[in-house]
């Protein structure tokens, strides 16, 4: 086969992938619409109904109010999870011994259904925003800590020796040598941490809150307002998608690769 033919085929391949990737959301819309027919619309809202509920929600303000509340909790919880996770990961990852000790403990805790512990957060932080923030933090801190810890093994001893021989302070060594070294693994941790914090916040709101999109979601079940439920889901999915696409762009620029499936979520 000539090089030219190979190139042409390759371009074909890329194009069909692109087209396919574009068709996935279209397919989702089609299936969604078809489901409306199947369920005969009683318990279900199609794309059009959802869209008008979305617009209605924006106009009435309940969507923006809920979103603002949820996002505030999310941002605070996430920032705290990143700071704590990074700190824990770097502290434990700096020592082989302590990473060996804590890795299975962290991974074990990470894999229990954390939602069962939510009542404890309610006991400690009451029903307000704090309990949601703490619960979101609790979800997000593990992936950040675990991935930071495992990324710490990629910090080169030579680089640390260079840092010491150039008399860098601890903070300079952290900022200028350790952070750039662990960045590829770290961004994956930051993305997974975001996703889990988000999940924790929404779960917390669904279970016990008086505000926020998760709370509104459960409220609308009682009222059977399925189009509004769908509108909220669309907003949540959109937030997750936008943030993750941003992270993916960052990851591919840094050449980050997910190392084990274990850490996927």
């Amino acid at each position, binding site marked *: 086969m000539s090089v030219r033919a190979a190139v042409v085929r390759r371009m074909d*391949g890329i194009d*069909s*992938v692109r087209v*396919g*990737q574009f*068709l*996935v959301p279209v397919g989702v819309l089609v299936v969604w619409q078809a489901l409306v027919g199947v*369920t005969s619309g009683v*318990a*279900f809202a199609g794309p059009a109904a959802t869209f008008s509920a979305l617009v209605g929600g924006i106009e009435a303000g309940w969507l923006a109010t809920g979103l603002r509340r949820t996002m505030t909790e999310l941002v605070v919880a996430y920032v705290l999870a990143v700071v704590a996770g990074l700190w824990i990961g770097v502290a434990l990852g700096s020592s082989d*011994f302590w990473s060996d*000790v*804590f890795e*299975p*403990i962290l991974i*074990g805790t990470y*894999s*229990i*259904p954390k*939602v*069962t*512990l*939510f*009542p*404890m957060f*309610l*006991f400690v932080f009451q029903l307000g925003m704090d309990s949601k923030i703490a619960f979101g933090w609790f979800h997000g801190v593990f992936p950040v800590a675990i991935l930071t810890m495992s990324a710490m093994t990629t910090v080169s001893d030579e680089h640390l020796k260079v840092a010491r021989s150039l008399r860098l302070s601890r903070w300079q060594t952290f900022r200028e040598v350790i952070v750039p070294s662990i960045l590829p693994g770290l961004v994956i941790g930051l*993305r997974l941490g975001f*996703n889990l914090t*988000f*999940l924790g*916040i*929404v*779960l917390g709101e*669904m*279970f016990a809150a008086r505000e926020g999109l*998760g709370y509104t*979601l*459960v409220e*609308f*079940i009682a009222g*059977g307002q*399925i189009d509004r*439920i*769908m509108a*909220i*889901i669309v907003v*949540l*999915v959109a937030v*997750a*998608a936008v*943030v*993750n*696409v941003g992270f*993916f762009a960052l990851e591919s620029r840094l050449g980050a690769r997910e190392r*084990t*499936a*274990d850490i*996927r*979520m």
Partner: protein
Amino acid sequence: MSEGTLDGATAGLSRTTKVRAVQAAVLVSLVVSVEVGPRTGVVGRTTLIPLSVMVEELLGLLGSGQLTPHIVQTFAAVFGAFALAVVTGVPAGIVLWRVDTLKQVLDPYLLIYYAVPFFAFYPLLISILGLGIAPILAISWGFSVVIVVTNTASGLAQIPEAYTAAGRDMNLSRWQMLRYVYLPASVPYVFTGLKLGFVYALIGTIASEFILAESGLGWLISYNYNNFDVPGMYAAMLLVISLALAVNTVLARVESRLYQRAVA
């Protein structure tokens, strides 16, 4: 020489032993603080109850049979969702591994899948399927199936070239290749997917029950919370967490055994 080798071996062992010892110390101090904290009043009794009280309560509830229907309900949902995830996820993973274009098309969507706060769909499913086991099965299946799909596909893709070359040398048919080469060689990787699939099904079930259900262990925790039955709540919590940790430990053991065999 031989004496020295022994030396090296015990030196290595003593490090592992030390790691184990410190891990045990961490866990014991956790257990002790859950016991002593509420007893000494460092933590309020309305926040946390001593571990021994939890255990006592749990044994009482188990003995009286009050927990049995909830355990049955939760297990039915977990195993049902997991079985569905395996039956649908493994074949889908094989297809994805064979059809590269499809994999390329779906890759970004599969990666983003778990970014969606999944339980938001639960109210929707309830309004479609009603409050019973069906929406729980649906959400746990959805939560678990994609990790099975992606791990099956990536597991099959990780099979060393040497195995497939050997298979081709023996003129195996496509089916024989799949049956005798690909599947056995990918067992460890696929198992990782199944392990995670099971853990996800468990998380999915408990979380759905917790938010809104009429029975099940997850529901019991939230029911007891809402009815101020703190000992009952902690007993159910203890049961769920112990189950999750036990399942995880067993599956992780099997997994590491499988990987060891794959390497050897």
